[in-house]
């Protein structure tokens, strides 16, 4: 499973020009894992803007890969050409399939599901959580501030978004450690049986919760989903499950990975930490720029009608992967893209994708980042990566370091 292996041309469809076929080891090759964001930024130099990547790992699919911001945005904005059908690489029981809602529902129907939660995830809606998140961040910091060291991913990056998620859903905080272990098992295990077991545990637990909330509703997200009637009808059990599970997947690992990426950068950039502390009025731009350079995931789509993009012909049923982190480093859009510039003219970043399936949790993620950066720097303004520590990245579809030992 290394990078730069000879592509298996036998899996390449006829309509794909041979000179566009590339293997690059995205998400698992040694070059990628050494420095994933630098690797992805460099794709603008090392690969054509659109190339065809025969699958390089067991669960991956042969897919067109896009690195240009303009092309990714085009794909994301045209769901009638590029749908989410079959585009999410996730194991599911074929005898009892469920759809990830709203991701795997096409417009216009998906809007009915999004509308159920839209008010809660609006800037005002998530604003109501700011105090809770601030207290939570400080409580986590209390536990290690005097030790002069911490393992950031387990002591802060993992518990914070999980606690926020539990609170939003109306789940008990004492489930946090359990949820953490299920999330890790499901999303980061190299062992298929561990992933399957974690999935079973999540399924069992969520089904029990859905039963409980049906009998004893509260005003949190799971109850809201259960009681919703998109189209005048309550959702089926599978739909409710697909919605809640998707929120679980969407909101946990991504924020975790983003926090870890950002705090690694903060640990390595003392002057920039000072700059952030000294410009509280600019925090919103600071967060946005750090989200740009630390995007953690990709958007997959399936072609629904033959089309042409940047002169490349794509056929129905082709798969397409928008390499969102690479698009965020597109020099056509972001001048000096590798520079972390807190005064950059604002443009939409693709970290949360965009278009009709744009991340519903974007405002919440921004708020979590703003609070975590502000509070951590307020309490521990100076810190570094523990001397001698080597940073290793998770292989797979959410990009971030496995461990981040910090000292101060």
């Amino acid at each position, binding site marked *: 499973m290394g990078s730069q292996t000879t592509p298996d041309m036998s899996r390449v469809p006829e309509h794909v020009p041979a000179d566009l076929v590339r293997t690059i080891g995205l998400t698992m090759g040694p070059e990628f894992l050494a420095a994933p964001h630098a690797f992805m930024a460099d794709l603008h130099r090392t690969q054509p803007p659109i190339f065809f990547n025969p699958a390089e790992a067991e669960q991956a699919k042969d897919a067109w890969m896009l690195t240009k911001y303009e092309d990714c945005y085009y794909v994301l904005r045209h769901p009638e050409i590029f749908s989410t059908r079959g585009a999410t690489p996730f194991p599911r029981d074929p005898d009892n399939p469920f759809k990830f809602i709203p991701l795997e529902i096409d417009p216009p129907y998906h809007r009915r599901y999004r509308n159920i939660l839209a008010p809660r995830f*609006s*800037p005002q809606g998530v604003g109501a959580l700011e105090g809770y998140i601030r207290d939570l961040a400080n409580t986590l910091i209390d536990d290690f501030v005097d030790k002069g060291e911490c393992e950031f991913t387990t002591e802060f990056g993992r518990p914070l978004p999980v606690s926020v998620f539990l609170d939003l859903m109306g789940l008990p905080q004492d489930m946090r450690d359990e949820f953490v272990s299920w999330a890790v098992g499901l999303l980061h295990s190299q062992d298929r049986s561990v992933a399957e077991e974690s999935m079973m545990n999540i399924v069992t637990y969520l089904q029990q919760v859905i039963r409980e909330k049906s009998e004893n509703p509260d005003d949190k997200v799971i109850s809201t989903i259960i009681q919703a009637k998109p189209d005048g009808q309550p959702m089926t059990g599978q739909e409710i499950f697909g919605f809640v599970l998707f929120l679980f997947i969407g909101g946990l690992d991504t924020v975790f990975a983003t926090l870890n990426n950002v705090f690694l950068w903060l640990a390595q950039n003392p002057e920039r930490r000072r700059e952030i502390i000294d410009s509280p009025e600019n925090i919103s731009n600071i967060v946005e720029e750090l989200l740009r350079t630390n995007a953690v995931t990709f958007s997959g789509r399936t072609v629904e009608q033959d089309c042409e993009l940047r002169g490349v012909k794509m056929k129905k049923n082709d798969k397409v992967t928008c390499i969102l982190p690479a698009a965020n480093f597109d020099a056509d859009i972001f001048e000096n893209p590798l520079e972390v510039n807190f005064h950059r003219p604002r443009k*939409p970043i693709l970290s949360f994708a965009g278009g009709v399936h744009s991340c519903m949790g974007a405002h919440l993620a921004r708020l979590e980042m703003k609070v975590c950066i502000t509070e951590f720097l307020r309490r521990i303004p100076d810190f570094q990566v523990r001397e001698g520590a080597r940073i290793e990245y998770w292989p797979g579809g959410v990009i971030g370091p496995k461990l981040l030992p910090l000292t101060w």
Partner: protein
Amino acid sequence: MTSVTYVEFNGTAHTVDVPEGTSVMQGAIDNNIEGIVAECGGGMACATCHCYVDDAWMDKVGPATEPEHDMLEFSASETRSTSRLSCQIIVSDKLEGLVVHLPEAQF
């Protein structure tokens, strides 16, 4: 089809046909008109499809709803009484000839 004119901040006007039932935002995106971003794809979650409805059309289009106002607070450009989120203006033959002005910035 309904004719809609989008006037960029620099004064350049684009007149295009937009199918009935489509939003003014979608008409801009489908015709590659600069000045509407629509980051969230029409979910009233981003305020980057902001437009100023031409004075002559305000009666027919109507003012922003309260949820729109909540989002317009986050707009990068000044809001006016004619401000709307263009994803919430649905085109019909009643709006034949609609003119909207685009703000200086969506971001």
